[in-house]
């Protein structure tokens, strides 16, 4: 039943990503509309706005959570596609290990930078 659990986490991560990435897309690209509502932060990709968000725990937490769920969802999906093409039972174990290691490395790199900018 472990594959059923992996798939269920894939579905849950899809829903979480839809929410978190939706927030991210709205902040990054709908700044005119947000400004109209008085919620905007100026130009969202300007250095000031980026550093402003980097200094606030809620944004850093949001980005790290988004990275975690997105990495799981993306790597599980990509793993499925690769397994459909390789067609070898021995390759499955190797592919699982490669993806887990790659995922951990990317997560550590991707969360280390915002955490270090948060503290300093």
């Amino acid at each position, binding site marked *: *039943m472990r*594959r*059923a*659990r*992996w*798939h*269920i986490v894939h579905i849950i991560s899809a829903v979480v990503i839809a929410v978190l990435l939706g927030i991210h897309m709205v902040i990054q690209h709908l700044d005119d509309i947000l400004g109209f509502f008085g919620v905007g932060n100026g130009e969202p990709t300007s250095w000031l706005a980026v550093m402003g968000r980097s200094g606030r725990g809620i944004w850093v937490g949001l980005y790290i959570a988004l990275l975690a769920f997105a990495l799981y969802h993306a790597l599980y999906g990509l793993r*499925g596609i690769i*397994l*459909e*093409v390789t*067609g070898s*039972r021995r390759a*499955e174990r190797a592919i699982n290990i490669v993806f887990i290691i790659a995922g951990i490395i990317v997560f550590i790199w991707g969360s280390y930078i915002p955490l270090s900018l948060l503290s300093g």
Partner: protein
Amino acid sequence: MTDSESKQVIFKVQRYDPEQRGVPHWQGFMVPSRRGMTVLDGLLYIKENLDSTLAFRTSCRMGVCGSCGMLVNNYPHLACHTQIEEFKSDIITVKPLANLAIIKDLVVDLSPMFARHKSVKPYIIRKDTAEMEKPTAEYYQTSGELDAFEQFSYCVKCGICLAACPTSASDRLFLGPQALAQCYHYNADTRDDGKEERNGVAASEHGVWHCHLAGACSEACPKGVDPALAIQLLKGQMAGQALGLGKKQPAAKVVAPPKEKKPGIPFPEFTGKGNK
């Protein structure tokens, strides 16, 4: 086209002779086609009159045996169940089913499909083996319980769903829509008690989780079995089991036949015993 009129239709058939060690190639045949003629009638005409070396499977010629599955104009059909006139074209291309190895011409090797079907244990499994071996009575099942799986029992194992499935196109180890649908068919049968055994196979890597709901299997199925629905219901069953949701239903109980006979309509005794 009226019933008596016939027109010449070109059958472009993919030929392949393994003993020649060539590659599959097209061969065209002129076939006189009448209203009501099926693609199988056309192939039989070719075999009887034009080229007796053309190889294809056929048996019941009425859409119940599943022998004559093939790609007609790039879509999987049962040849006996498909009228030439429905294509509204003067050229009918006929190829063997995709994703299954070609033995010769239009004959494909269905043994991988049968092996996968066998691997999901497509029969009633019960823990009360004594009753299974020496049955004393029937298993109780309501018509509502029958409706939960009856649709999936109409499968004729033609292989058309495998030809349609995009996952089967690339994943050679994929169980396939036919086997997965039959896995659900027996899981959903209240008389069965073998879910754990079957789900071990269906939950393997190239099992149910490689289905991505393209839906082509259900669209192409000639018997309305809707394997895509069965597979999604199987996923739901497995997800429920993984999360520990839902109560475990016990398998159907045995019901002894009624002892009292209903009063019958009085009828004269015609048998020889009564006359003696």
